[in-house]
């Protein structure tokens, strides 16, 4: 009797085992097979190096360098006391700072903790040599972005940062993933698609300690494409240094085809700060009162001041409101109703024709000319010269500026246009707002015989030439342009021209200065110019925020830049 019960107990226990085995090894096998795969297979992302950004002569502007991080694998980091004290003396950082950092960044025993990012090569070698005394400590090498010229071309080149959730939502179908680096502003943003490579991956088999056993599969990362700029980085650097502490912008362009040779905005910032994120410095940049990240050459609109007289003169000549014989007499004042408008020269310029008026930048002459044209015609020619809309330069965040006319004022302000505003319009003041790049576009159009070129900054991507920009004929007669060009040449070359300070020995230069009221009692200083006058190769615009008179520092800078361009073989 009892042996039968005993037998039954044994039978049922073994049946239980059989059922347990069947359940685990047959019914639930897929789950466990998956888990066992997860156990042993790790996918390691191999990040593709980003394409380089090079200048017109092949100099690297933004490249890649190897960043060395001191990393700790918590699971293997057994001898903490010894480890921290050694690392502290190698890295020259206090022990408790390292400990705090380690504890703050510790997620779980398997995830490496970056203890010290971007350490020097010497330190990395020392740590490598002592690795056997410090189990769990190792050096990780990653390619990262290196902005060689630091702040000289910051707004132009842009910077990179980790992709944000908003961007990710927009871009994930283009293959962007969390933690990807994405270009922010400048060329990095505009050409991100080409610069970013295609990440690869490696499937490796690991053992229980996460140590690599063998490679199961490999997808090679595809390097991003190199982008070649039209910019001459040496000129760029030179201009950047010319500014010193000053604020403003300067753009240099080949007026024949729109190739940007330099595009400087000041103050600037070092984009490397964003590569190995240094939160303190980033905060400093973002909260800076002078907005160093702003590209003043394309994203800020200013009143053009006297520079605008080029457009007004051209308009009057084209509309036959003026001929070269027509003179206005400047006695320093212009009366309109009971309003009085001043010329900048208190005693007046005397009788002025259009050529002299441009050379002397006589306000009275252009008050009169403005009145002859009326706001709508001035607006029409402004728009012809490219004001009021983006030039289409291949950089993000270009602004349109503002070209006012009667209709605009009625809609925007619900008021009629006053005659006084027309007079002011004639000298480039009032509601009118222009960006330095637009001003340069106008200058180039005068220089190249009436063509509006699209400024561009990228010559080719890898081996594909993309420089063929659009060129549009403005339909302005050669006659009018000749008159304007002659006048502008006198601005620099006549001894009493307003832009005489821009003169460079051995170069024929045409130019125009401008001193724009800011409405706060200070003035922005402008200078535009091109050279050589007959067959221009270089056109430039200089804007100094609150820089006093255009004929002074702005013109001096213009001259220096022409000289440097000549030295660099651009002229």
């Amino acid at each position, binding site marked *: 009797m*009892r*042996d039968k019960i*005993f*037998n039954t107990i*044994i039978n049922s*226990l*073994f049946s*239980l*085992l*059989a059922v*347990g*085995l*069947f359940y*685990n*090894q*047959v019914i*639930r*096998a897929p*789950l*466990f*097979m998956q*888990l*066992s795969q997860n*156990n*042993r297979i790790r996918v390691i992302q191999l990040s593709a190096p980003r394409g380089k950004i090079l200048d017109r002569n092949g100099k690297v502007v933004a490249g890649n360098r190897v960043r060395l991080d001191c990393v700790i694998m918590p699971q293997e980091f057994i001898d903490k006391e010894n480890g921290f004290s050694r690392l502290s003396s190698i890295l020259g950082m206090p022990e408790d700072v390292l400990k705090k950092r380690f504890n703050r960044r510790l997620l779980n*025993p398997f995830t490496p903790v970056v203890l010290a990012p971007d350490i020097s090569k010497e330190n990395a070698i020392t740590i490598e040599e002592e690795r056997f005394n410090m189990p769990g400590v190792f050096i990780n090498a990653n390619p990262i972005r290196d902005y060689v010229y630091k702040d000289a071309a910051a707004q132009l080149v842009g910077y990179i940062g980790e992709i944000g959730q908003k961007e990710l939502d927009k871009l994930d179908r283009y293959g962007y993933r969390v933690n990807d680096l994405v270009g922010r502003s400048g060329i990095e943003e505009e050409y991100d698609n080409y610069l970013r490579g295609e990440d690869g991956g490696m499937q490796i*088999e*690991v*053992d*229980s*300690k996460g140590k690599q*056993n063998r490679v199961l599969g490999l997808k090679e990362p595809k390097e991003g494409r190199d982008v070649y700029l039209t910019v001459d980085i040496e000129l760029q650097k030179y201009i950047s240094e010319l500014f010193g502490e000053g604020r403003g912008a300067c753009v240099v362009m080949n007026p024949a085809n729109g190739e940007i040779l330099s595009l400087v905005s000041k103050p600037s910032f070092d984009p490397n700060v964003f590569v190995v994120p240094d939160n303190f410095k980033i905060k400093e940049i973002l909260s800076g009162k002078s907005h160093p990240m702003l590209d003043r050459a394309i994203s800020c609109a200013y009143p053009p001041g006297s520079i605008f007289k080029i457009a007004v003169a051209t308009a009057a000549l084209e509309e036959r409101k003026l001929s070269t014989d027509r003179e206005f007499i400047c006695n320093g004042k212009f009366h309109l109703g009971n309003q009085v408008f001043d010329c900048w020269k208190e005693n007046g310029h005397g009788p002025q024709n259009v050529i002299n008026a441009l050379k002397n930048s006589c306000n009275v002459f252009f008050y009169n000319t403005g009145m002859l044209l009326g706001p709508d015609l001035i607006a029409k020619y402004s728009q012809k010269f490219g004001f009021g809309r983006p030039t289409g330069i291949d950089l993000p965040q270009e602004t349109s500026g503002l070209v006012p006319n009667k209709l605009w004022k009625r809609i925007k302000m619900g008021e009629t246009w006053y005659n006084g505003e027309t007079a002011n319009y004639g000298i480039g003041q009032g509601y009118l707002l222009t960006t330095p790049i637009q001003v340069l576009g106008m200058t180039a159009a005068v220089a190249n015989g009436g063509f509006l070129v699209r400024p561009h900054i990228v010559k080719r991507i890898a081996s594909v030439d993309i420089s063929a920009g659009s060129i549009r004929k403005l339909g302005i007669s050669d006659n009018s342009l000749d008159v304007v060009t002659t006048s502008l040449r006198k601005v620099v070359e006549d001894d009493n021209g307003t832009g005489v300070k821009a003169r460079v020995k051995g170069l024929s230069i045409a130019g125009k200065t401008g001193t724009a009221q800011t409405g706060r009692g200070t003035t922005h200083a402008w200078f535009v110019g091109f050279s050589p006058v007959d067959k221009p190769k270089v056109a430039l615009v200089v804007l100094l925020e609150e820089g006093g008179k255009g004929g002074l520092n702005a013109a001096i800078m213009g001259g220096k830049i022409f000289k440097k361009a000549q030295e660099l073989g651009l002229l």
Partner: protein
Amino acid sequence: MIYKQRFENFDFTLLLVALCIFCIGLLSIYSATRTQEVELSKSLVTKQLISIVISLVVFTILVSFDYQKYIDFSYFIYAVSLFLLVLVLFIGRTKFGAQRWFNLGPFTFQPSEFAKLALVITLASHIGKRRVYDLSLSTVIMSILLTIPMMFLIAIEPDLGTALVLAAILFSMLYMGGIRLKHLVSIMLTGLVSLPIFWHYALRDYQKQRLLVFLNPNADPLGAGYTIIQSKIAIGSGWVFGKGWLAGTQNQLNFLPERHSDFIFSIIGEEWGFLGSAILVLLYFILIKHALSIYSRTNDSYGQLMVSGIVGMLAFQIVVNIAMTLGLMPVVGIPLPLMSYGGSSLIITMSSIALLINIGMRRTVF
């Protein structure tokens, strides 16, 4: 001493099945240790081979004498076993935080293994002598009193698993020896009531941890629960046909701790699949069934009691060990008979099989 007629009753199947299981174990031990160090692997397989040779010598000796002789010496055997258990607490070798082994040159000897067999013989002698129709309470209490010192000494080594094996031996022998059901129930109730006291005062922290982890392995996936989880993954991922000998990734890549000893079954499960593990379980089943058939063919109560104790011991170890690797029972350190690495366990298991065959051979003694 072995008469021809008796030799005819020698249960070759039992021995063959046992050796078969041993060979499977040997292959698994090789597979389990191969990746760590070739030298170590070789030495473990060699040691296990030496152990089987010793086992077979012991086997032959034990089969040669009538098992009644062992009953005669039972109290001497009991005394020696108890003495060794006390001795190991003083001069034993400490490994994994437990003091269970004597050092004998390159080998170690585990007195708790010997205690299992000693208990079987002692209880057989004690109960068999007094067995009439049903067991008197005094016999029952005396049996318990004989078991408790051994259990206690083993439990404080600590070796909870083996202590539980002793309990299994006691219960199966009392049951088959004819304990009254009301006595059995009261013993069980007493045990149940004393469980909380046991939990508080007798269990070490790591043992409590293991029991808690059994209830929820994911509570501590990197600590105590790790072994169960990895073992389940290993067995489950073997699927029907297994990943092949030496090809189990859980095993070869070191995800399984203690895999050449207590968790050796997970290697079978992973590398040989459901097919292989089912065959192994079947072999164990045949082993137990043969033992039980010897029980029914024997009229001698000493022999029957010894068979009951040995069957209880083996079945308990097999079922608990495999169920533990499947996550069906808490992790208690019990070796899988004939499979797990370890000389003492192998020799004692082979000895108990020798006793079974011995009893089977001499059933017509009367």
